[in-house]
């Protein structure tokens, strides 16, 4: 006999409660008024007598209730057959549907083995079929009907998902928690080594589970794959574009492979590459002809191998015109424009044409020609100009303000609509400067950049903007980078200047990255990625407040979102490889590419020792066919049927509770009569 959940036996410690209560009831009672205590003496009873327990029978029953309750939760079991009881267990048939199961006849073998297990199943044994892809999908309820189980198994097909053996362990733990029967888990999989989690503890099985492994496919299968493609997500000058593709071979001999780059399903370039045995090689496609707009690009290896799904790598490139930005400064300020413009030109992905004007020249500028505007330490804007700029921002424009020494002399920050509380000149303090102490990692313009702690800020303008989102904060909690929404537009405030007098930011390499990132942010280009993996989620609702409808056009030409999902869902996982045309909730259109995870490309199976260790993680696991692949016949499973006594414990608990109630009622009546 043993316990399936022995941790619950700690609940038996609760028996101390009724014992304590019975003692407490005896030693302490309701105060009772009496004429005079003159004739009473303090008790001089012995400790033993004082601690004598009344109502022994009641106490014993209460202790029994708690003990049986703890035992029921701990789920006692016995091995072997109970007299007069049929062996009961739950058979779970988990079929791996990850992308690697597309290789060769793996899926067919898995289906065949699973059907064999169903055929050998005792008629009264309940079973359940589970498809194990990126998630565990129950294809049937827990049923005894072999036909239902077989039909579900026949309907299983491989997917593009990444497999994880840890998912099976997690599923097993969930099933064990929800059922009071021992579980016999059968896994039909290629047992990919890459499917093992980094931490072996994630594979640990509950005690009541016996694991039977049904490996399919060869232990080692040669396979080539386009491992990765490094390509810019946005380009405006294709002649400068470089696309680097890496081809990897797994258990493969040295070979020369032909790599093809396709743009919008048209051959753009083709190169041959020598891939070493079980090694990697890269090929560069320089200056491909990329049309304007969102472009479907893919790199593909010629020929066929064991797993065609990873021979192609899809990605998306967006070609667009360079955006125009306007840099506005005081007429006396000639340095900041130089710093800002130089940083923008130095950025590798610079896609901004920056016009530089003084604040006086701003009056005659047509703002609609610009994607964003930078106001560098502007002492003030003419009311008409500010009104015009505010209207431009509300319509979707974006502004970056820097509040240096000139802006700090004003009462409020224009456009940002926040009063100036004052300024702080750190050079007059002992510390001479302030450092950045807090970075909001989720704030795109600043969060992803490192090295903020090395920036020295000498002068800062303090504003009262409690509603603003703060991206950077100084050590004295003064906000350094803030953002507010104005209509459809955004206003970003740097509470110091771009000059070297107020901060040494322009002297640091982070300045170029920061200017490039914030220019991208202000121009609305964001940080789109060129390719995703199957299972990754796309954001269909960048602004959760928007109530618009989203739509997805899948590679197979279907619209997978139903009406409720289209109206409500914010993120959506990509279920299969290919290109997805997205219509976001804000009516923007996007295109994403999903690829099979390259962890599926290595078809090498986990070592038998590892699998045996996994099976041994449950002390009731059964050593099955891990060392000898199953070829038709069901594995021989030792009869170590475990019988859970939980049900009997619950009956015993019921009896104890009823007895306790009767005895307690009797004592209660006697107490009432005596009182």
């Amino acid at each position: 006999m043993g316990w399936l959940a022995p941790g619950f036996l700690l609940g038996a410690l609760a028996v101390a409660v009724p014992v304590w209560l019975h003692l407490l009831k005896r030693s302490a009672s309701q105060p009772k008024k009496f004429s005079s205590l003159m004739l009473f003496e303090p008790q001089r009873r012995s400790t033993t007598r004082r601690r004598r327990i009344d109502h022994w029978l009641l106490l014993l029953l209460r202790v029994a209730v708690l003990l049986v309750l703890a035992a029921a939760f701990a789920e006692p079991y016995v091995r072997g057959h109970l007299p007069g009881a049929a062996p009961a267990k739950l058979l779970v048939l988990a079929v791996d549907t990850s992308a690697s199961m597309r290789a060769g006849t793996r899926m067919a073998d898995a289906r065949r083995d699973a059907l064999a297990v169903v055929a050998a199943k005792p008629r009264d044994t309940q079973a359940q079929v589970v498809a194990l892809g990126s998630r565990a999908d129950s294809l049937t309820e827990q049923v005894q009907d072999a036909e239902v189980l077989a039909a579900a198994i026949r309907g299983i097909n491989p997917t593009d998902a990444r497999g994880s053996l840890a998912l099976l362990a997690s599923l097993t733990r969930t099933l064990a928690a929800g059922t009071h029967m021992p579980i016999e888990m059968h896994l039909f999989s290629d047992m990919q080594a890459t499917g093992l989690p980094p931490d072996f503890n994630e594979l640990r099985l509950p005690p009541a589970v016996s694991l039977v492994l049904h490996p399919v496919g060869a232990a080692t299968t040669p396979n080539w794959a386009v491992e990765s493609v490094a390509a810019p997500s946005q380009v405006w000058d294709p002649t400068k574009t470089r696309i680097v593709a890496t081809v990897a071979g797994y258990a493969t001999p040295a070979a020369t492979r032909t790599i093809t780059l396709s743009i919008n399903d048209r051959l753009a370039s083709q190169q041959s590459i020598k891939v070493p045995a079980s090694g990697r090689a890269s090929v560069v496609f320089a200056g491909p002809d990329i049309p304007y707009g969102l472009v479907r690009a893919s790199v593909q290896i010629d020929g066929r191998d064991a797993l065609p799904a990873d021979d192609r790598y899809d990605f998306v490139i967006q070609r667009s015109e360079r955006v125009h930005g306007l840099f506005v400064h005081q007429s006396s300020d000639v340095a900041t424009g130089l710093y800002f413009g130089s940083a923008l030109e130095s950025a590798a992905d610079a896609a901004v044409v920056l016009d530089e004007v003084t604040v006086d020249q701003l009056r005659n500028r047509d703002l609609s020609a610009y994607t964003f505007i930078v106001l560098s330490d502007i002492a003030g804007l003419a009311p008409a100009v500010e009104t015009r700029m505010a209207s431009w921002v509300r319509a979707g424009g974006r502004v970056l303000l820097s509040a240096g020494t000139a802006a700090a002399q004003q009462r409020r920050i224009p456009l940002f609509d926040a009063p100036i509380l004052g300024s702080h000149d750190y050079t007059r303090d002992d510390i001479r400067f302030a450092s950045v102490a807090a970075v909001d990692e989720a704030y795109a313009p600043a969060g992803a950049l490192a090295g903020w702690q090395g920036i020295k800020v000498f002068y800062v303008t303090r504003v009262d903007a409690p509603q603003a989102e703060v991206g950077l904060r100084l050590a004295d909690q003064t906000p350094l980078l803030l953002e507010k929404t104005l209509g459809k537009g955004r206003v970003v405030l740097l509470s110091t200047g771009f000059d070297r007098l107020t901060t040494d930011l322009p002297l640091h390499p982070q300045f170029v990255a920061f200017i490039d990132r914030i220019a991208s942010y202000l121009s609305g280009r964001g940080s789109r990625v060129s390719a995703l993996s199957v299972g990754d989620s796309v954001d269909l609702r960048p602004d959760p407040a928007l109530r618009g409808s989203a739509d997805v056009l899948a590679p197979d030409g279907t619209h997978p979102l139903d009406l409720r999902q289209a109206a409500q869902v914010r993120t959506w996982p990509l279920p299969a490889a290919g290109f997805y045309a997205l219509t976001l909730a804000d009516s923007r259109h996007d295109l994403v590419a999903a690829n099979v995870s390259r962890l599926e490309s290595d078809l090498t199976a986990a070592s038998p020792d590892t699998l045996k260790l996994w099976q041994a993680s449950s002390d009731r696991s059964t050593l099955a066919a891990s060392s000898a692949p199953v070829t038709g016949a069901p594995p021989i499973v030792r009869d170590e049927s475990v019988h859970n006594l939980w049900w009997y414990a619950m009956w015993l608990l019921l009896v104890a509770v009823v007895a306790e109630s009767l005895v307690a009622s009797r004592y209660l009546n006697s107490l009432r009569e005596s009182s």
Partner: protein
Amino acid sequence: MQNLLDPAVLNAISGLDLVAATVVDGFVAGLHRSADFGFSQEFAEYRAYAPGDDLRHVDWNVYARSDRAYIKRFHGETNSQLMLLVDASSSMGFASHAVSKLAYVRFIAAALAYLATRRQRDATGLVVFGDTVRDFVPPSSRQGHLQRLLASLMQAEPQAKTSYAAPLTHLQTFLRRRGMVVVMSDFYAPPADIVRAVTPLRVHGNEVVLFQVLDPEELRPNVNGSSMLIDLETGAQLEVSEDYVQGRYRERIEAHVADLTREARRAGIGYHLLQTDQPLDQALMQYLRLRTGRD
């Protein structure tokens, strides 16, 4: 008629005067069938009229027949004085049933006052005391005095501690006539101290009687398991066990009663233990017994 002397029955009667009348009338009705006791209405003897005698008591029939004036005398006609000392300390408020000790004492005092003033024409006074004299009604036999006594009894509420020395010393100054002093209390004090405090009341030949009024629960407490008791007078708390209450406490209360009885007898003081669940006739009987003995 005995039922009318049951404290539980009397407790249901709202007016103390009605309680007193009910008790005494019922008691007297029972006594009329007894040969041992008579009341002032019962003829005792004739005595020659002397100047100063109340003309109302002259037997005019005898005078008409014999031309001599005789005074008709009755049993108990000799006027006496009855002082009722009522302990109204907090402990007297204890009750394990419908009648508290103070309520029981009220019944006794009211009945005695009624018996003394209406039947015996004795001057009756009242002292309500706790740790001090809280109410004092001088002895009198005037008409309407009974109502004053009953009103004072009604106003007596259990409060404060008990002190026998100060009230009884105070009372000595008012006892100028020979009579009876009835002290009603639970007497939770050392018996020697109680008797020492009461003994001076025997000046001028007063008869002193102690009525120790106890609740049955005080004599035979019923405690289940361990109980925390709170002293009604001091507020002190004490945890007592069932074993102690069933054994040692009963021994101590019985010893206390026995000591008080012995000390009182030794000092020539009457003593009676009254339980609040018993009829009141015992107290009345004791009063009449003492008064008859003094005639």
